[in-house]
């Protein structure tokens, strides 16, 4: 059996399926446009609905968001619907299709990564292709956990977009055939350092996506133009909170990633910090996220500015991964592309 072949096949398929999932979520988003006839009515309906929820019943807050919207939105559109299937149901249908496809894509991408590991006979994150596909497994896993735990289907569109682009780029641009590792990577830190990087990267990515959604929603709220899909998102405040939680989870782990990298560098290269481009950008990313955490607790920097910092942090994370790997030569040149 040729694991490498099946791995590539599964990963290509997963990229395609994620793309279809993204289309389904986009259709969900589009269907929502017709859902809400009167934007102001929807805002007040939604917000007052939340306010009126008694304390004892508000436990599944996020789950309630979905349910609340479905219930709250249906009456407003029942009369003005497009005939046939009520839009609220169409939105739900597309959303479910999206989730189903995401599950299929996730299964394929896990298969692909595992098969790749079997083909290589080692942990499947020795080059850029492998790292990207592994990271996407974690990104989608984080999303799926959030989806089933607290009903965050509204993250579906950005997450499937990211997964489709990530796996798509991996199988086309970053692809390299299976090969053993160079001696510098023969270390237990190969697992510790990179798993921490993958997980914190996944959390930073989901948090960054939430930060982007926060900005969109906040802008709409400030202008009073919350309609369509935006109305079915949680309030900006809640998105901000969620974004913060992802970052708060990722930041200590990223700190650990950098520290573990330093320990490994001491073993492999005889110095724990040498301002290698990858190290430098890991620090830059760390400092930007430290800025984000500080900004969130500083008057005048909360909210929009903090979200922008989080997005800059994500940009720096991606530059460190793609830009530094492909443009700059350094000790971390393992891309193999």
């Amino acid at each position, binding site marked *: 059996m040729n694991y490498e072949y099946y791995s590539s096949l599964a990963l290509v398929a997963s990229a395609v399926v994620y793309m279809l999932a993204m289309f389904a979520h986009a259709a969900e988003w589009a269907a929502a446009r017709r859902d809400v006839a009167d934007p102001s009515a929807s805002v007040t309906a939604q917000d007052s609905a939340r306010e009126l929820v008694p*304390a004892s019943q508000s436990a599944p807050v996020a789950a309630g968001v979905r349910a609340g919207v479905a219930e709250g939105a249906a009456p407003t559109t029942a009369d003005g619907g497009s005939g046939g299937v009520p839009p609220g149901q169409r939105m739900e249908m597309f959303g479910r299709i999206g989730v189903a496809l995401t599950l299929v894509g996730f299964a394929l991408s896990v298969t692909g990564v595992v098969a790749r590991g079997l083909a290589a006979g080692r942990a499947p994150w020795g080059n850029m292709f492998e790292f990207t596909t592994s990271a996407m497994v974690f990104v989608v896993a984080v999303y799926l956990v959030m989806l089933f735990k607290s009903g965050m289907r509204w993250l579906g569109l950005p997450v499937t977009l990211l997964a489709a682009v990530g796996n798509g780029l991996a199988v086309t641009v970053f692809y390299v055939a299976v090969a053993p590792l160079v001696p510098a990577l023969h270390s237990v830190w190969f697992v510790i350092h990179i798993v921490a990087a993958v997980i914190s990267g996944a959390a930073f990515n989901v948090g960054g996506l939430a930060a982007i959604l926060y900005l969109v929603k906040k802008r709409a709220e400030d202008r009073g133009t919350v309609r369509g899909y935006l109305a079915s998102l949680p309030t900006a405040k809640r998105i901000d909170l969620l974004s913060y939680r992802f970052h708060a989870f990722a930041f200590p782990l990223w700190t650990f990633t950098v520290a573990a990298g330093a320990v490994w560098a001491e073993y492999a290269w005889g110095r724990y910090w040498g301002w290698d481009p990858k190290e430098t950008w890991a620090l830059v990313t760390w400092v930007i996220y430290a800025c984000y955490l500080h900004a969130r607790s500083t008057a005048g920097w909360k909210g929009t500015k903090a979200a922008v910092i989080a997005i800059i942090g994500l940009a720096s994370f991606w530059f460190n991964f793609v830009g530094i790997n492909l443009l700059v030569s350094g000790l971390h040149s393992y891309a193999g592309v």
Partner: protein
Amino acid sequence: MADTKISSVHPAPAQLPDGRPPKPTKGPPALGLGGGLRFLWTQLTSMRTALVLLFALAVAAIPGSLVPQRKISPIRVSDFIAEHPTLGPIYDRVGLFNVYTSPWFSAIYLLLFVSLVGCIIPRVRVYAKALRSRPPGTPRNLSRLPAYAVAEVPGGNAEQILAQAAARLKEQRYRVIRDGDAVSAERGYLREAGNLVFHVSLLFLLLGVAVGGLYGFRGTSVVITGQGFSNNLIQYDDFSAGAWFKDSDLQPFTVAVSSFRAKFETGNVQRGAARLFEADVAVTDSPGGTPVQQKLEVNKPLNIDGTTVHLIGHGYAPTVTVKDGAGDIAFSGPVVFLPQDGNFTSAGVIKVPDGRPERLAFEGLFLPTAVLDDQGPRSVFPDAANPALFLNAWSGPPKKETGLPENVYSLDTDGLTQLKDGRGDTLRIALTPGTSYTLPDGRGTIQMDGWVRWVKLQIGDTPGVAISLGAIGFAVAGLCLSLFIRPRRVWVRARRGQDGPTLVEVAGLDRADARAGLDEDVAELAAGWSGDTTGKGSSTR
């Protein structure tokens, strides 16, 4: 440096530092020197400044990753200056080739750490006070708090209910006090502790780095297999040490390299990539000691009494025998050639100062897998599949011994003439192992006997590393506490209604944002006295 730092900004002093009341003036009041300094300090330790400094640090670190750095790749720096004759010197002057030791970079991180200290000290004081103080009093109107729930207990005993509340809250690890007709509880003190530990750890991290920089040393030495290295200053090819390092700190050990194995990818995928580097060494940790056989690999450095020995490079040394014009062996042995590319096209110089009547010198390339085509001689694979030596030759009258050190890797052609072949062209010598070449006009012969590998050892000691590592451990732990501990205040008030049921009010307040579950906890607590609770609240305010 989070959360409440903004509150460390001092209010404008009502009195000048010397106790005089401020003069009534128009416009901004005069601060005086003390006030001015205090103002500066306040500004420096404010959260905003910390934010700006953090940003500045991130931005300032970037050029060092894009512009070549002297400490990392000196050759690329000189290439850069040669390629950019106008930009190069400007870059040099503003320190762009030494970003991480430049005054501006140092200024940013030193200011950041000063700001950090200025932030930590008052917060430690505030925290120490908070630890000793009691939970806060009960607000009069509990229903105004973010989470609120009421339970009506028919015929309940207020005292009993409050005792139950206190017990239950204590179970949930709250610090509880009785406050009139209410119970006041607080938890989550460790959040601020974690925050402080994190920030203090950063100071220790810097301390560890500083100790390593001051007392540490690092050097490299190229060792041909079959030879050895003894830890003595003169044996290093390059050496750098901190200001407080003393030569006597070098441990008197020796490392003899008996063999070195390298393997490279021969398949089609990543052809030529390294697959194995492994050296067999014999370590003698003190003069006269017994040598201990050890294996030295990448990622597995030797540790000899605290000094680490890393395997950081390798290369080829062709072994040659040169006979001079008199027919005597003037030189014999391996000569280190330095790799120039990934396929180990290696450049080097063979100096024969003892040749008589004329001294000889050779300069050229060693190619482990030689190919000679229109691009000139080059190596196409890093392993020695088809080794060859391509040389030019020089000769000249013997040089007077001056004792001045000379670079073994470059040839000073002063007093030397390049040898020509019969047609007047530059003499080109191509040798493979076992072959020899006779120089024109009876100047002698050069024979390539074979080749051996050499390894580059890095020997170093960074004493502060344990401090830094411990600091990082504490920093991560503190960070987790400061991000995941939820400080929360809860109040329970029980009042006997007139002839009616006892009214139990429960209210809660989260003292850090991004916490959830307050409503649920408050409602649950209230539900403990009555299944039927009414309340209001939203998850966060």
